[in-house]
């Protein structure tokens, strides 16, 4: 049960990260290398804003949401928007730069202290086999589920979702048909950052937040690539595979390899099916 609990929560963490990466890729053909850092900083913001005002959960949640919205809009409007028309690697390198800046923020603002998020709602549930699930874990899993369902419904059935997908394919045409492309892309960044923050909070509750935990971003990226960079379904599938493999490796083989495992899986998948399990083949040439 311990195994199942850990893997499920790890899957949720990675799935949220992968979903954010997929959304950003679908919306702007940008592969975001800063996602892990966004997640961890989101987690830190959650932690700090909760601390600031009487350990209040609501303030923490508000803080994290505010951070996501502000950060998402900032990244898009100030940086990514100016990169229209540049070759693809420029956007990627800018996200790498953002990652570095966020990491330094952790060092400067939070002194890179290890922080565990404890929502403090006692007691945790004990399950058979020695596993413990705190209420936060349960809430996290439920929220993840709600997030993905909401996202699916949004993209499939709402008008804004259709406009989103159209903007992702051809921003020029979308603009000609009256869609405010800046609004749509800012929204994409906000949703992605929100997902990242949620994942950071989850991870911080189960493990810890520090400058080392930013590596979950790379695991999320590989999960997205394994599943297919343009598929939300793939994000979940990839996350499950990566979480599973990582847990098994750490438990059975060698903990040092935990960072490398996602990449090994990715290499395997890329040899066989480079566009990912659920991705579309044509996408391979776009990036």
């Amino acid at each position, binding site marked *: 049960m311990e195994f199942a609990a850990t893997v499920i929560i790890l899957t949720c963490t990675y799935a949220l990260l992968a979903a954010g990466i997929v959304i950003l890729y679908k919306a702007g053909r940008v592969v975001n290398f800063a996602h892990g850092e966004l997640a961890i900083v989101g987690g830190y913001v959650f932690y700090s804003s909760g601390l600031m005002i009487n350990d209040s959960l609501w303030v923490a949640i508000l803080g994290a949401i505010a951070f996501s919205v502000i950060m998402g809009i900032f990244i898009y409007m100030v940086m990514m928007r100016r990169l229209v028309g540049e070759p693809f690697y420029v956007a990627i390198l800018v996200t790498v730069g953002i990652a570095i800046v966020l990491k*330094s923020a952790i060092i400067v603002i939070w002194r890179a202290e290890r922080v565990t998020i404890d929502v403090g709602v006692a007691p945790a549930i004990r399950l058979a086999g020695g596993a413990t699930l705190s209420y936060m874990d349960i809430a996290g899993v439920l929220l993840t589920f709600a997030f993905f369902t909401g996202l699916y419904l949004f993209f499939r059935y709402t008008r804004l979702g259709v406009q989103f997908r159209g903007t992702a394919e051809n921003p020029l045409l979308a603009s000609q048909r009256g869609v405010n492309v800046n609004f749509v892309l800012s929204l994409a960044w906000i949703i992605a950052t929100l997902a990242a923050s949620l994942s950071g909070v989850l991870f911080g509750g189960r493990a810890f937040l520090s400058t080392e935990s930013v590596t979950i971003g790379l695991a999320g990226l590989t999960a997205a690539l394994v599943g297919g960079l343009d598929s939300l379904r793939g994000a979940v599938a990839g996350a499950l595979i990566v979480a599973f493999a990582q847990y098994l490796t750490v438990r059975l083989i060698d903990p040092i390899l935990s960072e490398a495992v996602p*990449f090994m899986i990715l290499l395997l998948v890329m040899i066989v099916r480079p566009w990912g399990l659920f991705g579309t083949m044509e996408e391979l040439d776009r*990036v």
Partner: protein
Amino acid sequence: MARAGYNLRTNYLESNEVLRRPYQRLLVALILLAAVVLPMGSSNFFLHLMNLCFLAGIGALGLTILTGFCGQISLGHAAFLAVGAFTTVILTVHVGAPFLLVVPAAAIAGAMLGFLVGLPSLRFRGVYLAISTLAMHYAIIFLATSYQAKFAASASAGITIADPVIGPFVLRGDFAWYYFLLAFLAAVTIMCVNLSRTRPGRAWMAIRDRDIAAEALGINLARYKLLAFMTSSTLASISGSLLAYYSNVVTVEKYTLDLAIIYVAMIIVGGMGSVLGCLLGAIFITLLPYGIDNLFAYVPRNWRFGSTIFGVQVGAVGVCIILFLLFEPKGLAEIWHRIETYFDRWPFRYRPLDGIRR
């Protein structure tokens, strides 16, 4: 004979010239002269900084060939540096090989690994290639970590090696290293400049710009992509080996993904695709943390935590990457070219056209 201006080349011979104008030749001569004379009155610390810059320059030139000329994105540069360092360690500690044998051996090891890491480039481009190089990075670092765990004196102290001996000379001290590295860097720079203006360079740039068209022109993609990877990894490996000798100690913790990104930052800040940019970027990024240290002297005392300075040093690289990519994508080299053409064209104005590459 009337020239069209320094950056407008009107025939094939002209396009292969390196230093076309007298003032450029004079400038390079002056810089070399200054470089040779400089140590005669500089502190050891300054020489140490210069040595770090030179070492970074050698490694960065490798990355320029791979990413700047050939357009293959690679995040595995730290791994190649590690290969050089660890080959050096293995050969000096276990076999006792001399310097003049170890460095070439490190180069060969680097080349072989470059071949391996370059293989995915035949199938993938762009992000997928970057990720596969990242995967190789982790694989190599894992091997290095295992080696260090087994053979190091203590777990995190790393492995020490003696100073290199070249014939009757022992290469010790910043002064001696300065001249050695200066000569080495100059040689590698000339090699890279020559590579860029002959067939491999042209093939790489064709691949970078439109690889399908390059293939249609008869350029063997596999051959040149692998050549780029191998040249890059060889240079990085040599740089890693020299750094190992220079600092007399090797630890695997140094070779992180962040280090690879720092090298990428060097070529971005300096200007991708030009040797001048590469060197400028290497110097800039190497000296940046020290510059920030100095800046902090002006900051009020109670802000000066160790972690804050470190954090700002880390963040500064990121900020530089972002600022340069947003506002000056062609880097420091472009700023230099703009200054040059301002004086060249004066009193006319010269406005650069977007999308024109030199």
